[in-house]
Each structure stands twice: as C-alpha cells, then as structure tokens.
C-alpha cells in the first residue's frame, strides 16, 4: 500500500483505484486523466453476469406429524473464509482439515440458526457432518431434527456478517404445501414453519392439482368410468343397442353414473383417511382392476333377457356398478393421500382439496367424452365399433392388470 488518503479530500480523488496488473495502489498524482482511466478497470465489465452463484445455503425442511426434520448445506468456501480451515493454504480443503474443526463449526451454526417456539429456544439434534457437491462447489452438510411441530419459528443469521449477499434458500416440504422455496436475507431472517395442516390457499390448490393429477394419470379410474359411460348414449332394446333420442336422457344416465361413483369413492376416501376403515392395498388394487373388467363385460349384453334379476340386474344398471365399485376405488384414492403423510387432526382441508381435484379431473374427461359419444351414437361406427371393440380392449387391459397385481408382476405398459 502506497497511500491511504482520506476520501473526499479533493475534487478528483478516488485515490484508491489500483493498477490491475500489479495490484498495487496508484499514488495520487492529482492527474485527472490517469485516475479516470484506471477507474474503468472496475467499470466496463458491466454486462458480464456472474454465472458463478453467490454464497447460498440450502435448508431442506420437512414436517412430519410429530417432528421437523431437515438438512442444512453450507458452502465450504464461506466456512473456509471464516474459520481459515485450509491450514496448509493450498487452496484444496480436505476432509481432515474440515473434520478437525467440525465441533467448533457446529457450535457456531447453533448460535446462528435458532429454532424456537414462542419465546423458548427449542433443542435440536444433529447427525454427523457430511459433505455434498452443488454446481461444482463443495458443501458441508448437517442433518437435523426438531422434536416439535407447533408454532415453530426459524431464525437464521449465518454468514451475513461476512457477506450480506449470502442467502439461505429454504425448501419446505409438507403435504399441505409441497415444494415451496423461499429465500432468507438480512432483511428477512425469520420464517414461521407453517403449522401442520394449516393449508394456505396455495397449498390447498396444490392438493386440488394433486387430485386432478391422480385421476388423469391413474388410468384405472378413468377406464372404469369410460366402460360405464360407453353405453350411456344408447339404450338396450330387444334387438340390441339403439341410440337414445335426446341429449337429456343420455345426460341423465351420465349424471347417475358419475354421481354414484363420486359419492361412493368420496365416502371411502373420507373413512380411510380418518383411519376408520382399512383394506390391504393389494386386495384393493386387484379389485379395482377387476371392477374395470366387470364394467366392460356388462357392455356385451345389449339385449335384456327374460328373468334378468339379482346380479344380472345390477350388472346392467351402470350406476349400481359405479356405486358398488366406487367404494373400492375410494380406497385407492386414499392410498395416495396417505402417502402424503398428512398430520392427523388437520385433515379436512387437504381432504376436501384432493377430492375436489379428483372430481374436477373426472368432470373434465366426462365433458370431453359425452358430446363426442352423443354425436356419434347413431353411427354404425359407434355401435358396432367403439362400444364392443372399446369394451373388449378395456376388458383385456383389466384382465392384464388383475394378473399383474395379483402376482406382483410388472408386464403391463401402463
């Protein structure tokens, strides 16, 4: 250092500009021209973005029903800068260099990262230090657990006293709001862990979406419905299938089927989620596959027969089939909701959201199918093609699924 003049001592003083190549301070010459030139060094890079990511900590937090578990990842470069870990100063940090200071670093983490409930600091347990790699940079990893879920607050204050541009990215995972990310900054240091089940509108919408997603990608529910709806635009006559006269009577059948299915599966969905009933999942899956076959098979009986009664009567009234097997499909939906590990006692909101999603997804498909089917109902194509061939295909799929699910095989394409 060759000069440390006082700032503001002259009209042109930015005397601390330094030469780029030698990294030495330029003596103050009073020469405007020189200092302006040097100033550019730090000036013209304006548009080159830092593809290098700034100092960022990653905090993954998951809420369980009775505890919060998580993982904190801190950039090793920043820890080195603070603790001088690279003792041999070769620019390469080894596990040994880090491990020797592990306890000290953990104590520092515990001072800067505080879990609290009300005014009480909460104890939290940590696992042993590990490491990770993100974007080609090394991170120190600390897994932890907080044995409390009610009104938990996080106060984060690590590394800001050495880099105010440091951010802590919190990845919050819970059934009520999966995959939420937020950034903690010096002006925003605290985060209230959402109460279990305290679903925000955004979280609730996520569950609605989850419901839609499930019905659209769980092909078995849709196929079951489709098998029941294929004949809705037709009616049975002694000579076989005939088109219904008006949209009204077709819609009546459709509404009957959809409503029966909805009421039934909602009923079991609620009962299972509340933990009042349960069935082995393989049994449920096999029965669902079987139900698709039954529904499709019924479509081959176009003519009513004398003496149809009992089981046959039921088979030929699609709404009854929809209701009966809808109960079983409800068990299937509940399985998805159970996987989300919803905390007990806060089920109403998520349950409603998910169910609404299922119904919306189902309704969308019905709205696509019914007008098409109605328009084509009188054609040979529909009566001799779509109905029997479609039903046969569905039956085939169902048979495949029954075998697959019964024996835990995996040969079906869907």
């Amino acid at each position, binding site marked *: 250092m060759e000069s440390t003049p006082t700032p503001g001592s002259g009209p042109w003083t930015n005397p601390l500009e330094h030469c780029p190549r030698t990294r030495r301070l330029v003596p103050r010459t009073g020469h405007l021209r020189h200092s302006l030139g040097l100033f550019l060094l730090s000036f013209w*890079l304006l548009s080159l973005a830092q593809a290098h990511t700034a100092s960022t900590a990653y905090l993954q937090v998951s809420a369980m029903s009775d505890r919060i578990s998580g993982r904190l990842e801190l950039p090793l470069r920043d820890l080195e*800068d603070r603790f001088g870990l690279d003792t041999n100063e070769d620019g390469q940090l080894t596990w040994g260099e880090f491990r020797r200071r592990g306890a000290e670093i953990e104590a520092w983490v515990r001072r800067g990262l505080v879990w609290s409930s009300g005014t009480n600091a909460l104890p939290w347990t940590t696992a042993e230090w590990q490491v990770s790699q993100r974007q080609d940079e090394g991170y120190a990893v600390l897994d932890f657990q907080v044995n409390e879920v009610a009104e938990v607050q996080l106060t984060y204050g690590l590394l800001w006293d050495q880099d105010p541009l440091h951010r802590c990215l919190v990845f919050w995972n819970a059934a009520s709001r999966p995959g939420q990310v937020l950034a903690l900054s010096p002006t925003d240091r605290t985060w209230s862990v959402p109460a279990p089940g305290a679903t925000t509108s955004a979280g609730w919408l996520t569950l609605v979406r989850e419901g839609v997603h499930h019905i659209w990608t769980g092909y078995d529910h*849709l196929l079951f419905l489709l098998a029941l709806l294929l004949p809705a635009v037709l009616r049975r006559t002694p000579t076989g299938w005939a088109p219904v006269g008006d949209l009204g009577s077709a819609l009546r059948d459709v509404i009957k089927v959809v409503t029966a299915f909805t009421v039934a599966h909602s009923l079991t969905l609620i009962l299972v989620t509340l933990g009042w009933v349960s069935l082995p999942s393989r049994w449920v899956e096999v029965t669902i596959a079987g139900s698709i076959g039954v529904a499709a098979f019924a479509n081959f009986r176009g003519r009513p027969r004398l003496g149809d009664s009992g089981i046959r009567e039921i088979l030929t009234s699609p709404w009854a089939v929809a209701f009966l097997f809808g109960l079983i499909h409800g068990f299937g939906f509940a399985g998805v909701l159970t996987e989300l590990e919803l905390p007990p006692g806060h089920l109403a909101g998520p349950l409603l959201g998910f169910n609404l999603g299922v119904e919306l997804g189902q309704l969308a498909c019905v709205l696509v199918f019914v007008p098409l089917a109605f328009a084509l109902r009188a054609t040979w194509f529909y009566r001799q093609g779509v109905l029997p061939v479609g039903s046969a295909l569905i039956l085939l799929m169902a048979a495949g699924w029954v075998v697959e699910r019964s024996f835990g095989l995996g040969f079906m394409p869907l």
Partner: protein
Amino acid sequence: MNWTSPRCLLFVPLGLALQGFAPVSGATVWRPNQDSDVIATVRTGGSSAADRELRNLRQTLAANPTQPSLALEVAQRALDRGKREADPRFLGQAELALAPWKDLPDVPVPLRLVRANLHQTLHNFPAALADLNQVLKEDPRHLQAWLMKATVHTVQSDYTQARTAAAQLLGKADDLVATAAIAQIGIATGNAEAACRQLERALEQESSRPADPSRTAVRVWATTMLAESLAGLGRSVPAEHRFREALSLDPTEPYLLAAYADFLLSQNRPEEVLTLLAAHRSQDGLRLRCAEASYRATGERPTHEVTVLAEQFAAARARGERVHLREEARFELRLQRQPARALALARENWQVQKEAADFQLLWEAAQAVPDEPTLRELKEWPAPAGFVPRLPGEPQL
C-alpha cells in the same frame, strides 16, 4: 385417430397436469472415507498475495467498520476482484464494507461512487443512478460519475441522457475515454460505422504515446469495444485483429474473453473457443460459452456442464436475482433447446437491459418459437450495428 382408445382422452390433460410438478432436486450427500479426501476447492491456484492482503484489510476493517478510508479501500478492492473474477462473493465483501453508510444521509463522495459501481454491477440500475446523481449534485465536475452515468443510461437504452452525460467528458477527460464513452452510444443507436472510425483514430493516437501500463485497462476497453463493433458490422478480419490486440494487452480479462468467445462462436469456430478458454475454466462466467462451444464442436450436449448451469440458474432465480437473465435465455435457447422458455427470459431481460446482445437474443428466441408480435415489435426498434432483422418471408438483401 382411433378415439376408441381411452388414451386419446388423456393426451392433452396429462401434458397439462405434469407441468407444475418439477421436484426440488437434492444434492448427493456422503461422508468422506479418508482425511486426505479433497472436499472443496476454496481458492483456485492456492492463496495469492492479493488474497492475503484483502483478507488482512477485511480483518482490520472488521475492528473499525466505520473508518471511511479503510472501508473505501476494502470495497474498491473487493469490487475489482469481484468483477475481475466474476465472483459475487467479493461483491458481498464490498457491500459489507459499505454497510455502515447504508442508511446515512451523508455519504462521502468516493464511498458513494463505489456504491454506485457496486449497484450497477448487481444490475440494480435505479439505485446506481440515484447515487451517481447525488455525487454529481455535490460535485458537478466529477468525470468518473458522468462516465458511469453515461454507460448505465446506454445499457438502459436511455440515449438522450447517455449523450448528455457523455458530453460532459468532452475536452475534460482523457480523449480515449471520452471517445469510447460516446462511441458506445453510437454503436447502440446504429451509428457503428462512425463510432468505429472514431475509436480507430483515438487508438492510433494512443499507440503513438509512450507506453504506460496504467493505461492498459482503457486501451483494452476501447479495443474490445471496437472489435465487437467491427464484428457486428460483419468485418470479421479487422475484428479478429482487434480482439487479438486486446488479448495481447490483457489475456485474462473475463469480458474480453467472453466477447471473443462469442465472436468465434458466431464464426462457427467452437474448437478455438475451447482452446481459448481452456486455461480459464475456473472463470465460471465463461462456463456457458465453454458448454456451447463443446456442444457445437462435438454435437453432444455436455451433460455435466448443462446440469451445473441449470442448477446455478435455478438457485439464482430462487435468490431473486435478475443478473443472469441474458445468460439464462441463451442457455435455454442454445443448450436446452427450449425456445418458449428462452423467449420468456429474453423478454424479461429486455425489460432490464437493451444492448446489442439482448436485442439479438430476443430476436433469435422470437424466431425460434416463432413469435410474430415480438418480431414485429423489434422491427420498430433501432437494430444494433450490422444486424438486419428480417421478418419471415421478407426478402434477403
């Protein structure tokens, strides 16, 4: 279409349903087996004297955080390192040094100027201009402030204000600096031919002066500006010559390396990009160019580089940064082949900065989609030098 297949009902809604479900990716975590395992590179090339010096200065400052000359020294050095190495951690150190003056009404002019520089480096242009205007209010003859103001206005395409600011430099500042400040506005507003002539003349005068290492940065700046502008005009031979001249003056300047790499890519010479940047792999600012060059050279997407870049952009986005928009748009367009995403990013970027590269990127993305309204909107805009935006169906000149 055989609509008896139940799957036909699923195509559209399935596609829609899957969109919002990109999971947050976790990193692989492990516990090293041996103490000798390297877990991070904390400084590239070991600890340098400059590193130690800056660290010592920071420690001294930590003990006296309100000492203006010390704060200025640390902020300036950290800012220079941050720009030089395209490493935002140094920018954080600069910000920390300036923190005690954050909410004070009276900030010494030199500190305010460094702060303006920091703001513009972080693409916080309004804050940079507020500080610059305050500096100029206190000292209307502050040429550095006028120069920076001219550049910030140019980047934001406020050319009237940029010209007013640059005019303040005429006759008062170094000829080469004043010429370059005015030339950059000319280049941005379609007068690249004249700007190139002025720059060539000023550089010629410069070369007749005795060699002065303290003027290297200015010469590199002006020469690179000239080279980029010549390249834009399609005069690739003199452009190449100027790029090499600038590199002979300073072979490690990241902006220059990036500009030359872009030139080589535009000339379809990806192998040379890989050679050029081979020694600068630690310069993360150049990673995108490397990845692009390697994709073009081999025809295979460099999967590791692409993953790292994607994660970096995702993290920056989560942090709420808007510094990377141009790079991210380019990444989506050329490496991810996602024109729609690229267009959205290029549009967002166009709101922040409007340099030639931003124009071309937006144009390229809009063509790839294609998006006629954007293309028509850009036709109204003064195109950068040598760039003739042609709507589909328009005759080639």
